[in-house]
């Protein structure tokens, strides 16, 4: 009964996706994707709700330690080790990341959510313009803001596991605002204008695999490489997908290369598990070897060369898959604990990312009152700009009058002094004549 209702509920979604894909005119391709593979990959789009919790670690290779500046590498390793949960349902998305204690950082928790109307970001540590002291204060902080006030390219959701397993989730704001669903990376590439360059079979660790080589035609700013002249250019990427027919064409290996064919990353996934209720298999373990590093912030200390061996390895181990439908309010972050600092830019009058600042009072009954007071202050501050216009004009006029008065004063003073000089000279001449 339950199974049949589940199938009934999901069947239209699958059908819609199939129709959508079937109707999407793909660009000219060298090879056609076999229908069986396409149908298997389309099933990702039908996943209505999923939460994956994984543990991720990063370790530098001897080559990485030799080639990457120590502080940059330290940042990669410490930022790359955490426990993360990513959940999505019906256009909503939620991420929770718990980072273990590092050499210079206490354990921290960060949450980011989007409920189709607002973005939420929360963290357990909050800096009050005090970063220089490197002493994070243990004050929870929540930020809420409207998507229209953020940049369309802004991206806050980290989806390493899904990338490694060949599943594309929207992460940029402009993508999240559209009606979206998870997609197989290959189909997403083709929908964006990518091309299949070759199709064949391959064998990996005794598994017979279906191999698809494709190339992207869209720039990926986050992976921007530099050419020999050092200028940033729009890159073209070549992808090598190794699908395992035994597990519903799940990805066992995914390689990303640059235009020249040099390997940038290689993901190897194992331990496939079928999602309960879906004909979709996802890996339990992924190992991502990264052969290059080109962070924008660290340009000065980074390297832009690509190495034959990896610089560091990301290991991803899934702790749990959860296909239950999450309620809507799990995609909203609410300040409940007294003392939480809130930067609430969810009000319609707010024009930017920063909005009304307040702290959740000890008495929850007073929360609305606190918000009302702070909101009135914010509106007063915004209104000050309008009120300042006549004052500005007045002071500019007064300035002009002051300058003119000063000029007149100086001229009159000089004129008087000259007149006095003439009178004195005249008196002296008269006196001389008299003598």
């Amino acid at each position, binding site marked *: 009964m339950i199974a049949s209702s589940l199938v009934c509920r999901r069947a239209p979604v699958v059908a819609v996706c199939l129709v959508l894909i079937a109707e999407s005119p793909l660009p000219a391709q060298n090879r056609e994707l076999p229908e069986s593979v396409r149908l298997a990959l389309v099933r990702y789009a039908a996943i209505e709700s999923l939460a994956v919790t994984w543990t991720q670690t990063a370790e530098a290779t001897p080559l990485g330690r030799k080639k990457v500046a120590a502080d940059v590498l330290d940042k990669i390793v410490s930022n790359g080790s955490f426990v993360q949960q990513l959940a999505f349902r019906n256009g909503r998305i939620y991420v929770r990341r718990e980072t273990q204690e590092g050499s210079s950082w206490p354990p921290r928790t960060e949450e980011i959510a989007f409920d189709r109307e607002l973005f939420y970001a929360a963290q357990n540590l909050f800096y*009050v*313009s*005090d*970063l*220089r*002291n490197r*002493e994070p*204060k*243990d*004050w929870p902080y929540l930020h809420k803001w409207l998507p229209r006030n953020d940049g369309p390219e802004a991206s806050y959701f980290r989806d390493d596991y899904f990338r490694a397993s060949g599943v594309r989730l929207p992460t940029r704001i402009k993508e999240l605002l559209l009606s979206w669903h998870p997609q197989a990376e290959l189909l997403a590439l083709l929908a964006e204008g990518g091309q299949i360059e070759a199709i064949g079979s391959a064998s990996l660790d005794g598994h017979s695999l279906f191999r698809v080589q494709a190339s992207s035609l869209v720039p990926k700013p986050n992976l921007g490489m530099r050419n020999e002249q050092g200028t940033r250019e729009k890159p073209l990427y070549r992808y090598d997908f190794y699908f395992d027919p035994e597990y519903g064409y799940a990805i066992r290996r995914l390689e990303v290369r640059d235009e020249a064919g040099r390997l940038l990353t290689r993901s190897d996934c194992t331990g496939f598990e079928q999602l309960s209720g879906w004909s979709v298999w996802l890996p339990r373990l992924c190992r991502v070897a990264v052969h290059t590093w080109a962070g924008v*912030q660290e340009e*000065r200390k980074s390297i832009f060369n690509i190495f034959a061996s990896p610089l560091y390895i990301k290991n991803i181990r899934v702790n749990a898959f959860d296909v239950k439908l999450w309620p809507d309010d799990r995609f909203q972050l609410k300040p409940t604990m007294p003392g939480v600092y809130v930067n609430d830019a969810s009000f319609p009058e707010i024009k930017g990312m920063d909005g009304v600042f307040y702290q959740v009072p000890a008495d929850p009954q007073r929360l609305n009152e606190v918000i009302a007071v702070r909101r009135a*202050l914010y509106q*007063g*501050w915004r209104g*000050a700009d309008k*009120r*300042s216009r006549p*004052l*500005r*004009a*007045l*002071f*500019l006029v007064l*300035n002009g009058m002051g300058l003119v008065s000063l000029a007149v004063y100086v001229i009159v003073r000089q004129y008087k002094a000259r007149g006095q000089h003439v009178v004195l000279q005249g008196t002296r001449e008269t006196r001389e004549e008299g003598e």
Partner: protein
Amino acid sequence: MMAWWSKPLSLGLLIYIWTSGIVILGASFGHQFVTPPRAASAPNFYEKFSAYDGGWYKWIAVSGYHYDPGQQSSTAFFPLFPLLGAVLMRLTGLGPTWALLLVSHVCLAAAFVLAAVYLHGRRPPPDRTALSFTLLALGVMPATFFFRMTYSESTFLLLILLFLLGIQRNWPLPTIALIAGLASACRPVGVGLLLPLLLYIWRRSPDRRAFLLRAALFAPLACWGLLAYAAFLYLQFGDPLVFAKTQVHWGRTAPSLTTKMLALLSYQPIWEIFLWQPPANWSVFAWEQVNPVYFAISVVLIFVGAWQGRLNAYEIALAAMLLLIPYLTRAYEMNMASSARFTAVVFPVYLIIGEYLARLPPAVSAVTLGLSTFFLGAFSALFASGYPIF
């Protein structure tokens, strides 16, 4: 016969000790009795003297400079003060806060003595009352509590006074230019000493050609500190201007130069903050409101003092530069934040205050100084307890 306590050394030191005692007592009161606005970050009393920018200097003294184009960086803070602190740390084994506090206080004590010496040498010589009132004003004006914190203001004040004394006593040009150069390594407004220096060169030059020649020689020397810091930044971070570039992370960004200039010409940064809140919320203890008022009063005092001929040309030029540089460069972006602190080093302001206090009825002068002392203590307490006083 001059009483022992009215000699420059003893008078300067006495006033330094008494007035600094008020700041320390105020900070102690704040530490013990004033409820902090948020969870206390520094449990030790002495750490309360290194809040806000004081934390940056501490950081530089311990770890040197860092620059990250994406966030506030320590390169915004000039090197002389933290360098002195770092040297003291290595020589004595003191912690960064104590070392920087020691530098601040030694410089401040020396500044008081130099101020007394400078006042004795002014022409016409001030009477004893005006002299004492000037030193008292230097000690108890509310924003002078920063001189006792781990801030570079007291070091800069000492260099300003040394510079003025050099001019007063006709010291050789290279010596005065070197002092100005050292000041330019202490605070960005140190370049403001160029104008009085050029005036000094002009007055000591027999003709225009000699002036141009000397100016070309000594003006760069008077910026040696800034140039050396820029060279260091170039070697360290590949860009000599990162001390200025990192400023974008403090305060707002002007939408255009025209907007900024119109705002500055209409004094918008000074009055704008009072429009943000209804008059019922204005407060004499709200430092963000004190900042523009403090600045405006100082400008008026300098203007009136210059008009009435109470300041000489060097003092006027120095005051004009020390007030104009921060106003033109940062007032719009920072909504006048820190302008009271920037104004605290404008020594000619204290000359005018001292003269006016000496002319007022003694009771009025006493109450005025008493009020100022109260605010000095109150702001020290608020600063120590973590309120945003900067």
